[in-house]
């Protein structure tokens, strides 16, 4: 039974990773940059929800919506102020800037809200008891899995059916050509950041509901793990982020259960290194060599 319960925990944790990884993968696909600050947007989302429910007593759904709105705005703001001016800059400069933004968010949050760890009130509580009480699934876990599925389906439909979604795919293939076809590349990139950040807010709330602690650095490690998931699944690929997220969640849970809690990150990162070595493009990605 503990095996099955570990699988369930893994899948639900993985669902959260998958939602975060989607943000990384979409931004990477279109802007060809690693948005290091993505993990910290998660933290901001969680804080918004924390204050909305805890301090102002808003209902959970409204709090989540508020978090989504704030993070979306934040994502667009970050992109416009910090990344847009660097569109033609070398990738090293963009990455360093992204690290700067990540640090800005973390330390800004620390100044505003304090460095101490807060206890997050889950947006849903309780759990579902199965097999005569031998298998428990919390509602948060179920919610995470459901959210992940919904997000997956919506994003797939969005990128394949809608005008904006098609524009995104066009931009990630070839920005120059997309521009010639009359696509506004800048607003498309902006839109991608908006979607990614909205998802980060959702993931933030889910994560803090499942593991109810919150501090300014809450988002950084899950962010890196989710990036690992995105790379694992194949960066730039939406189903890849989904697959990578779930797999990583399972690996992490099993590492915690059967190896050591302290070493679970080491195991996760070892997976990343092995994947990059064996299949640099990830499970579902395609490798594109530099053109000579």
């Amino acid at each position, binding site marked *: 039974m503990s095996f099955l319960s570990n699988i369930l925990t893994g899948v639900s944790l993985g669902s959260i990773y998958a939602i975060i990884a989607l943000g990384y993968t979409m931004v990477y696909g279109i802007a060809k940059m690693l948005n290091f600050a993505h993990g910290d947007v998660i933290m901001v989302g969680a804080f918004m929800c924390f204050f909305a429910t805890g301090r102002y007593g808003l209902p959970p759904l409204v709090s989540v919506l508020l978090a989504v709105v704030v993070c979306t705005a934040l994502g667009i703001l970050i992109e416009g102020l910090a990344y847009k*001016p660097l569109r033609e800059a070398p990738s090293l400069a963009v*990455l*360093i800037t992204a*690290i700067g933004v990540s640090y800005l968010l973390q*330390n800004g949050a620390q100044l505003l809200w304090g460095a101490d760890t807060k206890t997050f009130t889950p947006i849903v509580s309780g759990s579902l008891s199965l097999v005569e009480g031998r298998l428990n699934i919390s509602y948060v876990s179920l919610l995470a899995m459901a959210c992940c599925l919904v997000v997956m389906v919506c994003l797939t439909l969005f990128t394949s059916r809608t005008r904006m979604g098609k524009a995104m795919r066009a931009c990630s293939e070839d920005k120059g050509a997309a521009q010639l076809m009359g696509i506004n590349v800048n607003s498309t990139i902006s839109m991608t950041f908006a979607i990614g950040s909205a998802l980060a807010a959702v993931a933030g709330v889910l994560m803090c509901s499942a593991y109810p602690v919150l501090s300014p650095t809450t988002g950084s490690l899950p962010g890196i793990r989710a990036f690992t998931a995105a790379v694992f699944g194949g960066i730039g690929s939406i189903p890849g982020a989904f697959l990578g997220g779930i797999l990583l969640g399972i690996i992490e849970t099993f590492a915690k259960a059967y190896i050591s809690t302290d*070493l679970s990150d080491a195991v996760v990162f070892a997976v990343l290194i092995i994947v990059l070595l064996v299949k640099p493009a990830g499970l579902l990605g395609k490798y594109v060599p530099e053109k*000579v």
Partner: protein
Amino acid sequence: MKRTLSKTSINGFINYGIVIAAFLILQLLMAQGMISNTLKSLLVPVCCYIVMAISLNLTVGILGELSLGHAGFMSLGAFSGIVAAMAMQEFSPVPRLIAAILVGSIAGALGGVLVGVPVLRLQGDYLAIVTLAFGEIIRNIIVVLYVGLDQKGIHITTNSAGPALEEGGIMVIKGPMGAVGVPKLASFTAGFVLILITLFVVQNLVNSRAGRAIMALRDNRIAAESVGIHVTKYKLMAFVISAALAGAAGALFGLNYSSTVSSKFGFNTSILILVFVVLGGLGSIRGSIISAALLYILPEMLRGFEFITKARMLIYAVILIAVMLTINNPALKSLLEERDLSLGGLLGKLKNGGRAKKGGAGQ
């Protein structure tokens, strides 16, 4: 030799000069009793951070690859150096310190090979994320490591009860508590010498054929390959030397405190060093020295002002973004490049009717 070589070596000599002068001035001030105890306690760490900054600059500024796990190599150096120093109880401090630093740099270099061989085939963002991952793995592993010493040698275990030691044995690393009971062997003079050695290694490397190959890789990998540069070999060379120097700095750092925990060498430390390098100017050794020294000492000196202490990292973050946006601003960049044109370049430009601008288009 001829002009080009002498120009770069003059630059190098100025760097030695700055370091030696700073050392002498500080020694003089100390002899006069004009240096506070706070500042005195910062001298060794500042030397370590200068070495860290110069060595990271080798990877980021000269090789052009972003490493986010530089503190991981420092950590390897610190803990292996501490073990080495503790294992050599019967020797006098100076050989103990030298041996510890050597062991630290070897540990750093081994770590560099271990990370470098697999990941240097990757490029850009992947390399950055893997070095970050590596730094975290090291930290993770040291947290569960228990190391003890006795007459039979070194005992390592992950069992929280610690290794079974013979009588007279001592525990060196106690898992989450880190290294304890460390002899404080580090000294300012040792730090000063380490900076000089680092300068010697990095500057001479840059001015050799290997250095040219490394910079060629940075500027254009495909072209470098086309003239016979082995990409992995030279990337690895830069990366491993950088890691070895970080290991040496780590050993000195570790032997400056009676206890050390691995969380001192986390991601934040890696970023701090990156800030030093970026602010000092990518590829500028002198910039790394000056910015590491200033940015390390200033906030410590300003500890009295509460806001600065609190907002220190926030300020760094803002500076980091501002510097990146400024130096990559197209308008400003072309202005800087105009300045860069020497007289000869300007004449050449006039002669060719302003065609110089087109040159960049090919890249």
